[in-house]
């Protein structure tokens, strides 16, 4: 399999990760389309350095999270995007109204977090172990645990404020 086909199959297998990271960091559809395409491009650019030493999922998280930080502020710099089917960029709706409401609250809470907390919380929500989070984020395992416990406190105090 040549590099291009290998890349396409990795992206297709992990498109859910890209969508989740992108939707975690953007509110607006244009920004989402832009960040999505930039993430795919950055992954393609770093394909040479990805030798399979880590799992493709870990590599995709790392590049997608870093792209979200480094690219968001530059999104209005005139780089063109290709038109994408809106379905590609939309998270699936739930039939359950209560579940939809929970997702809405979840996103409102995420907006209150700073960039570092956002990254750690996203990986935690994704079910990654503390060791994996530490490796992707570049902190120690203890530090990750401390930060998550601070996020818990922050969320609790937000609930108390709104109650």
């Amino acid at each position, binding site marked *: 399999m040549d590099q291009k086909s290998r890349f396409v199959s990795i992206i297709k297998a992990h498109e859910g990760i890209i969508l989740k990271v992108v939707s975690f960091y953007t509110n607006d559809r244009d920004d989402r389309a832009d960040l999505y395409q930039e993430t795919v491009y950055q992954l393609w650019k*770093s394909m040479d350095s990805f030798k399979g030493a880590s799992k493709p999922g870990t590599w995709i998280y790392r590049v997608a*999270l870093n792209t979200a930080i480094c690219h968001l502020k530059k999104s209005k710099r*005139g780089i063109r995007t290709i038109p994408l089917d809106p379905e590609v960029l939309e998270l*699936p709706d739930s039939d359950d109204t209560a579940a939809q409401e929970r997702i809405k609250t979840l996103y409102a809470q995420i907006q209150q977090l700073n*960039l570092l907390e956002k990254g750690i919380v996203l990986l935690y*929500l994704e079910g990654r172990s503390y060791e994996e989070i530490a490796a992707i984020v570049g902190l120690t395992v203890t530090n990750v645990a401390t930060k998550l416990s601070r996020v818990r406190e922050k969320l609790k105090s937000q609930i108390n404020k709104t109650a």
Partner: protein
Amino acid sequence: MELEEMKAAWEDLGRKVEKQDKLTHQMIEKMTEQRYRSRLDGIALPEKIATVFCFVFAAALILNFYRIHQPLMQVFGALSVAYLVVLPLISLSMLRDLKKISLSDISYAEAIRRQAQKRIRFQKFQVINLVASFAFMLVFFPVLIDMMGKSVAHEPYFWMLVVPFGIAIFLGASFWVLRCYNRTLSAAESLLAEIDQ
């Protein structure tokens, strides 16, 4: 909503997202090709226009240098040319540096750190730019007047309009840039402190 509840909601969403198979081979190829082409364009349009404008202005000044008579004005003219050539070059090299970072080789915390430092550096450059622009204005207008064969000392418009107007613009721009600078600095510093804690 507490973190564990958030996790349950996210897992629910994740199960649906992971099943999605909406990207096609063609879409992925188009995305990378389009971005690659855009990157070949390199620098964004505003920087291109500003650079061309500065270089044309510098060339015009050099070509008309023989029309500057007083030695002090010749020094001011040389400073104006230096400003018009050096500042865009610094700006372009800063932009080029921003593109050098490889996003797969650094951790998330390192990316945040670099981004915060970059923002601080950029804001500092804006402050320097502002002061340099004001200095440019102060040296350029007398040169322009001298090139027209007149003297600054005998030019009432220079003192009545250009100087007060220039100072007003400078003060307004300073206020705005410093406000942005302080805001960026405190946000970036708190992020850096958060990483190092």
